């Protein structure tokens, strides 16, 4: 079917009974200029520790503090990408754990895997071995506060599509949790991410936005019909089923609103005050998903196809979507989980080590390998920062200047309360949070030592930088020096 263009007037006339009401949204108001550019927030995660069992100390944190910190193996991409000054880190952090029956604020159980993400993302105590959240994550709190009426209040992405050890990771593959405290399903497919953000725009990548096409009209008509049928079904259901379908209806309504808003905003979808003029290219088909690691004889075999789904490309694409969404003012908040907790992604195609990321911290690697694994995450985080810095804002700043970015990891290196070992990868001592951006005076490019402070306090400081002072779970104290 060849797409063609119709005027909006003729489209609405032809729709007849299928016409849909357009919600009034900020992006639909005519040429509204922002007094100041909006702030943005990124929360990222890597499912790795920072050092190897028994081989301390790790070499990722720099020795020099402040903005002039020296490059290290783990942080090398920051210099390589030329974003020194925009991307930095806070080091010597610690997620505390239960001791003598007492769980500290934001604490974890001594069980490592599955126990460290939630305290960092939500600032809450985590008493379960399951990685399921019990409170809202920082990105969702921020989205509620600063999302305004953007088309997508938040973007929730994951790069690594499956665990490679069977299944898709369950809650170990969920970084964000909603305001009700329930872990959220991330978008894993780059195609779906594209569809979600940009498919409602009618123009090819790089071109001006056109009049509405039949494809767009068809999409809206179908959604309207499906939403209506869902609504008609609701009264017929039992109370339990009604609750379930109501949730589905709400999601359909939200989707319809996003589609309508994206296709009817100024300039064919680009909201006023945006720093972009075009959409990114359609990524077409998703990269094939790699097989689980296979066992051959007594050896795990790490090949280019097992344990790898071209996460390199997936990360780049999803990063670009976040950047474009921020620049186009389609969203102001994003979470991106680069790798799953206890990550079994193969390191062969990425850094050439015959191991998955998890085992590299134990029997198949060393501290340098771990630094390279961390650096892979830092590279993508820094790439996103660099891209955000490429978009000028209306006041002469850049989008990165209006963004606060944080990326935390599953573990650090140090004492493991499970085994009692002094230097272990299963530790939440000596953790780092990689930072980026300058929103609200956020010193995203500096190296700050915050001995013993909770990583969620860094996240909380980033929240403060974008104007959100709501406590993050148990955490309500910012890290001194991280904001100018």
């Amino acid at each position: 079917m060849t797409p063609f263009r119709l005027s909006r007037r003729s489209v609405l006339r032809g729709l007849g009974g299928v016409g849909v009401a357009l919600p009034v949204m900020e992006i639909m108001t005519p040429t509204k200029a922002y007094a100041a550019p909006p702030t943005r927030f990124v929360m990222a995660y890597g499912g790795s520790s920072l050092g190897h069992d028994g081989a301390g100390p790790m070499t990722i944190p720099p020795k020099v503090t402040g903005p002039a910190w020296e490059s290290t193996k783990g942080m090398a991409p920051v210099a390589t990408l030329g974003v020194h000054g925009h991307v930095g880190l806070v080091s010597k952090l610690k997620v505390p754990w239960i001791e003598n029956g007492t769980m500290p604020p934001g604490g974890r159980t001594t069980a490592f895997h599955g126990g460290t993400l939630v305290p960092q993302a939500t600032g809450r105590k985590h008493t379960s071995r399951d990685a399921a959240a019990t409170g809202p994550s920082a990105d969702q709190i921020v989205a509620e506060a600063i999302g305004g009426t953007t088309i997508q209040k938040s973007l929730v992405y994951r790069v690594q599509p499956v665990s490679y050890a069977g299944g898709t990771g369950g809650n170990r593959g969920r970084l964000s949790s909603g305001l009700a405290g329930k872990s959220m399903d991330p978008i894993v497919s780059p195609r779906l991410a594209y569809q979600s953000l940009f498919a409602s725009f009618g123009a090819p990548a790089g071109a001006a936005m056109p009049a509405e096409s039949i494809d767009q009209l068809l999409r809206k008509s179908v959604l309207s019909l499906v939403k209506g049928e869902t609504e008609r079904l609701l009264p017929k259901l039992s109370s339990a089923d009604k609750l379930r379908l109501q949730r589905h209806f709400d999601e359909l309504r939200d989707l319809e609103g996003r589609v309508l808003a994206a296709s009817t905003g100024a300039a064919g979808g680009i909201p006023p005050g945006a720093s972009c003029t075009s959409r990114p290219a359609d990524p077409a088909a998703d990269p094939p998903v790699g097989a689980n690691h296979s066992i051959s004889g007594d050896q795990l075999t790490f090949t280019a196809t097992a344990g790898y789904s071209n996460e390199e490309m997936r990360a780049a694409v999803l990063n670009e979507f976040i950047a474009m969404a921020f620049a186009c003012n389609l969203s102001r908040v994003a979470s991106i989980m680069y790798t799953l907790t206890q990550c079994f992604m193969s390191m062969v195609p990425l850094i050439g080590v015959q191991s998955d990321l998890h085992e590299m911290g134990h029997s198949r690697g060393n501290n340098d390998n771990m630094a390279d694994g961390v650096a892979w995450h830092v590279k993508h985080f820094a790439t996103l920062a660099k891209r955000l810095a490429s978009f000028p804002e209306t006041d002469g700043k850049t989008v990165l200047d209006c963004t606060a970015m944080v990326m935390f990891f599953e573990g650090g290196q140090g004492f493991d309360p499970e085994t009692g070992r002094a230097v272990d990868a299963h530790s939440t001592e000596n953790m780092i949070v990689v930072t980026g951006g300058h929103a609200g005076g956020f010193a995203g490019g500096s190296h700050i030592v915050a001995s013993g402070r909770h990583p969620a306090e860094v996240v909380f400081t980033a929240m403060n930088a974008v104007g959100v002072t709501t406590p993050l779970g148990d955490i309500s104290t910012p890290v001194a020096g991280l904001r100018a």
Partner: protein
Amino acid sequence: MRLIPAVSRPWSFVFLVLAGGSCTGVIGDTPATGLASAAPGPGRPSGTGGTPGVAPVPTAAAPTVDMTPPAGMRRLSAAEYDATVRDLLGDPAGGSNLVLPDDSRTPFDNDYTNQTSSKTLVEGVELLAADATGRLLKDTTRRARVVGCQPAGAKDDACLKSFVTSFGRRALRRPLADDEVTRFLTLGSLGQMANDFYVSVNAVVRAFLQHPSFLHRIELGTPVAGQPGIYKLSDDEVAARLSYLLWGSMPSAALFDLADRKRLETPDAVRAAATDMLTDPRARDRIKRFHAMWIGFEELKQAPELADAMRTETGALIERVIFDDRRPWQDIFRMDETFVGDALAKHYGITGPGGTQPQWVKWGPSGRRGLLSQGSFLQVGTKANDSSPTMRGLFVRRNLFCQPIAPPPPGVNTDNVPPAVGADACKKTRYAAHDQGGCRGCHDQIDPVGFGLEAYDKEGRFRTTEADHPECPISGEGEIVGVGRFKGPAELAARALEAGLLNSCVVEQLHRFASGRTNLDDLDRALVARLADRAGKKDFRFDTLMLDLIGSPTFVHRREE
């Protein structure tokens, strides 16, 4: 108020409850006495399916309507979604699991109580619908078959109405009401605007593929007089229950026809339909997948060639016992032959068939028998480098015996194996750490089961010493505490069958799979007990068990949650 039918509990579950750091055995209604009462006894469904010496007993009563368990709206799992699109549109593309949110495994992929709608779901469904429709429209032959009429032009109301009515009946698994048809026909304006009839088809198909009644199996039914909260399902709802249980997909034309003619009104009629459906190849695949999810071999960790050989071996065993030979289900665990080629035979250390093509060969003096001796089972409960007696024992207790075991208390290390004790790195010594303090209560029940499988490595090969510690001999002796000692997977299966543990569990797991709920309540347990009792007093064939479940009055009713 839910009425609990007055039925006996003919079999007991060993319910291990972790309290204060130790396990307390609580067995059904009986006082806590550890696992001793897991031994076979009166009422336990110890039917061994044709075991010599077991005298025939009268068939137990069938379940009754008042035993109908609760049922809720069920979203198609990713596997069901793919199969349904395949059967509805003739589209084998699949792959919806890479777009839709994860289906949690409990161990099955269809627990509706875990299903929550999300942005990712609705956007994923929309994308999948657009993809499937796009493929359909490009394939003009398939398109013509699905549409079913030849449009006279861009505006052909009669053809569009015929398509909406017939396709909608299949997509939603029920006839459309007139007003529904009318609403779908409004999409015809799109085709007129585009001067292309198939633009309307595009919109209609995409709308049906996102319709809540396509994406979910929604059961309404009609209230049953004198049975508060119980509803009799419509014929179409029964047809969908049947097809998704037996095929994992939508009803066939023949099944729709039965529903249209109101031939699914009675349990006997439903049972007859199910009997026919079991002859469809999809039933074989469905029942193999049930076992694969339950017993843990859906995703094998071995190298591709070995994994394929193991998957073929296990699938052949299940098909032979259930469909080809129609043996008692228990023979899956005691079959003295296995379906292998020379490579897998060599892997097991048995005599192969003399070629690469798999054939049935005797296990012979290897000591192996049945599914638990196959690599597809022995790979479960292993760590990357070796088998784990704890993980294997836990898997057997939880999955095969249906004994819920609480997780260890916070702070207990389960990621690493117990460390060596001084210079002694043998597993027996290392795992002795579990015999201390609060660990002991549970691990005394778990680890001995795993140690009984230790003579078989993580790929199912026989061994006499530990892989990394050749100085450590493996005795291969284990115990189901309270039942008896065993050595190796064949004896484990024998002890479990004698005790009725597997018999009980297969019925319970089948009910979970059929009902789409993992957490069972008293009603479920009463129904399961009745079905298990009946199976134990018959020949315990799996197809008969399924037909008993399907032919029960509870299958054509639902209880409001």
